[in-house]
């Protein structure tokens, strides 16, 4: 696949190397140190860092400002953008704002429903959906035009990603849905956290059967479990999450103070196994409020050091 943007992430992937991305959640306040600290912890261990956009609909410092922070620190940020809170004017405007700081990656999402967050009485926007946001960014980049048809001076140069959840229902539609996202212009995929490896491998098999793995870079989503309690919570409370009972049993089987370590071990083993899966082009390690563990995971899986990429 040819490189179409200055994105570091795209270059790593295009070079055929396994990519590593991670993510930071911005703080619930305006202290920039929080982001700087998180970024410092992981910056040498990843190719790009996602900044979440008011994840779980809880109001936080905005993704764009945090991305600018990372960019100024020399990192390659991935701007996560949900269609829940912005209409097409605001989305295009924020894309240009990001592009003005040469933020070169975007992840297009619909966002969790606002009823999960701290503003459950608020409106949602959903003027366009995540697939149409992918189309929008590609249109702005490749045609150099706004949705309204006017020319953009200095169009954004963004590598365009989307999420995929191999575990959501209905399962029979998960591969066609990926095909649809690719047809919309998606260039990389970061998946939902993978705990059910068998089911993920089954999904990847179907992805390969349609040759989709050659049309999009798939990064497998990994989130280490901190405890059996977290695993149970993820299974029961987080929509679209598939946590097998054996995993909960394994975590519960070790003493509480050892569960975090066990969680990291499971994550490392999973990455080792998924590295062998044809079509998996890298890993998206989401260590939620546990960024300090990213270096260990990257090192133990042999993904360190990260490649030097010339600008």
């Amino acid at each position: 696949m040819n490189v179409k943007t200055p994105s570091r992430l795209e270059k790593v992937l295009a070079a055929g190397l396994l990519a590593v991305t991670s993510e930071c959640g911005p703080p619930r306040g305006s202290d920039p140190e929080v982001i700087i600290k998180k970024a410092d912890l992981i910056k040498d261990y990843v190719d790009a860092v996602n900044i979440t956009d008011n994840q779980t609909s809880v109001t936080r410092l905005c993704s764009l400002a945090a991305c600018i922070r990372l960019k100024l620190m020399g990192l390659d940020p991935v701007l996560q953008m949900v269609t829940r809170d912005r209409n097409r004017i605001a989305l295009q405007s924020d894309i240009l704002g990001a592009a003005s700081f040469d933020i070169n990656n975007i992840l297009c999402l619909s966002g969790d429903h606002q009823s999960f967050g701290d503003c459950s009485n608020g409106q949602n926007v959903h003027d366009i959906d995540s697939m149409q946001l992918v189309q929008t960014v590609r249109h702005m980049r490749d045609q150099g035009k706004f949705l309204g048809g006017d020319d953009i001076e200095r169009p954004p140069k963004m590598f365009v990603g989307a999420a995929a959840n191999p575990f959501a229902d209905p399962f029979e539609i998960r591969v066609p849905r990926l095909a649809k996202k690719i047809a919309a212009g998606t260039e990389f995929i970061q998946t939902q956290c993978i705990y059910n490896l068998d089911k993920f491998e089954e999904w990847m098999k179907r992805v390969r059967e349609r040759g989709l793995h050659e049309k999009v870079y798939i990064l497998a989503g990994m989130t280490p479990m901190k405890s059996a309690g977290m695993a149970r919570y993820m299974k029961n409370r987080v929509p679209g999450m598939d946590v097998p009972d054996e995993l909960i049993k394994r975590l519960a089987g070790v003493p509480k103070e050892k569960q975090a370590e066990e969680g990291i071990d499971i994550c490392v083993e999973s990455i080792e196994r998924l590295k062998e899966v044809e079509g998996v082009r890298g890993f998206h390690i989401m260590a939620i409020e546990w960024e300090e563990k990213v270096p260990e995971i990257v090192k133990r899986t042999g993904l360190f050091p990260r490649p030097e990429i010339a600008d």
Partner: protein
Amino acid sequence: MIVADKKPIEEIIEEIKDYTTILILGCNECVTVCEAGGKKEVGILASALRMYFLNQGKDVTIDERTLERQCDHEYLEEIRDVADQYDAIVSLACGVGVQFTAEEYHTVPVIPGVNTCFLGATEARGLWTERCQACGECILARTGGICPVSRCAKRILNGPCGGSSNGKCEINKELDCAWQLIIDRLDALGKLDDYETISPIKDWSTDRAGGPRKVVREDVQL
């Protein structure tokens, strides 16, 4: 039909407590079907209010009337002779009826007695569910006859989102995921391949976004 639900009586009392002659005005259309504002509900509300004022030791006259429709000048004319005898009218029609009554009787306060909820249908006795948001540009031909605008919590045109689980929506385990329904129906129609056609960005100017809407039909105008 337009589905409405009863307002709490305390809220209605708060609005009318200072009046002495009140007309409770029902409507024979949608609100009768959804049992929120027909003749029966007019009677129930009137009795409850009489009881309330009696307990308060207040002499208040509460009359009852139910029109064929409140969203029609012709039927609203039926109360022309009596309307200004009242200090206030409590309309149990939908928001359209309340406003039409208020426009017709400009100097009489008209108070809503129901909350107008949505365009929906009776799924079972006592259960009404939403089916349409009147977006002004129907896409049902493309979505297996199931409307993602009104029935998907994120009105996603290219769904489902990642939160769909066991056929249910991420926001509530009791709520069907619209996109599961769409996919099931496309499957039943042998049209599952249509799923991969990307739904284009929607023109919302025919929706509420475009401002108050109008349908003008010169062919039927007098």
